[in-house]
């Protein structure tokens, strides 16, 4: 008896240029598995896809309702695979989100709910370093910058569209080491960066 050619699972390049790993073409990848070792493996693959896709598309927020959507959603390219007719289910995504939060790869935002997270394809600490570096290189030390000026600059920057809660988390890590001071005003907050 001869064994048939083994089916081949291939990577897939999306129109945006993002390359989906071959496991994304494997139908059971879209079902929550039941063995602890396999679950850990599955979570790590999904987490890597979510974080790298988010970085690729500059997505900052993930919600449980992003699951089970087959179109018109910024996440549907990874949560829906029409080539194998498989889709991420909300309960599955909830578990993934929970594990990402536990691993420090995401944070519930707003706090005290579990259906929406900020995702950390850069950690708040990494964002903090980038912000401080940027302020230093662009001559913004010791002057007050509004949050608005940072996340909605006239010339698009690496901080464009960064959610305010994420900016605050990043700045908070700088205030702890005296490298920034947050200024709260009625018309919106601001920050002053200091040299080390």
């Amino acid at each position, binding site marked *: *008896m*001869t*064994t*048939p050619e*083994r*089916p*081949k*699972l*291939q*990577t897939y390049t999306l129109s945006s240029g993002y390359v989906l*790993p*071959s*496991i994304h073409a*494997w*139908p*059971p*990848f*879209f*079902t929550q*598995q*039941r*063995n*602890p*070792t*396999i679950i850990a493996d599955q979570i790590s693959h999904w987490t890597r896809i979510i974080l790298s896709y988010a970085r690729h598309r500059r997505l900052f927020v993930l919600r449980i309702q992003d699951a089970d959507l087959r179109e018109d959603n910024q996440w549907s390219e990874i949560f829906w695979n029409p080539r194998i*007719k*498989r*889709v991420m289910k909300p309960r599955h995504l909830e578990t993934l989100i929970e594990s990402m939060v536990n691993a420090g790869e995401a944070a519930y935002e707003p706090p005290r709910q579990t259906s929406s997270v900020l995702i950390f394809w850069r950690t708040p600490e990494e964002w903090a370093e980038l912000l401080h570096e940027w302020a230093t290189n662009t001559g913004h030390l010791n002057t007050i910058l509004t949050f608005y000026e940072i996340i909605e600059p006239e010339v698009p920057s690496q901080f464009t569209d960064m959610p305010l809660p994420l900016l605050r988390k990043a700045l908070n890590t700088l205030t702890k080491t005296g490298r920034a001071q947050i200024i709260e005003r009625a018309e919106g907050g601001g920050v002053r960066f200091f040299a080390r």
Partner: protein
Amino acid sequence: MNRRPGLAGFEFQTQSLQSYAALSSTLSQNQIDALHSQLAQFRAALSRFASEHRQDIRRDPAFRPCLSTDVRLHWCRPARGGRCRAEYTDSGTAWRGYQVVNVGDRLMVRSSVKELDGDQATILALAQRMGGRFEEQHLVDETRWTIDRTRVAMDNMVIRDGLCWVDEQDDARVSYWVPSAMVWDE
């Protein structure tokens, strides 16, 4: 035996194999040939692994004993026929428990201390033949097991052993998938 750098330890003791063989009056020449061929393949697989991961093996103290440990091969008569097993053991290195197992007509290296039981071997062989995906009914047809018996076996594969993945979005309601039956691009 052809030696390669860094592989001094991977020398199989064929003498030991022969002495085992001599003890058994029922071993056929075919089985011995088959085992020798398995060993050659296993050795080739180890060579590939060692050359691909040479840096890691050198760097990681847990692997280092592999470079100097004798590898002994034991082989047992299959309990219920049809399955030869070459077990690869040494004394307490990272390689302990690696096994070459026959699954269908394919040879697999299994990195676990536990050996495949009869159900696991049957199910993995079915999965290989089916191209990596099968349904409960395929297993019933194959084995003539009762539904209850089949479900227990599949629960073991899925939950206890983690040898099969489940797909609950299949047209068949549930299907089972075995990664080793597929070729992975990446």
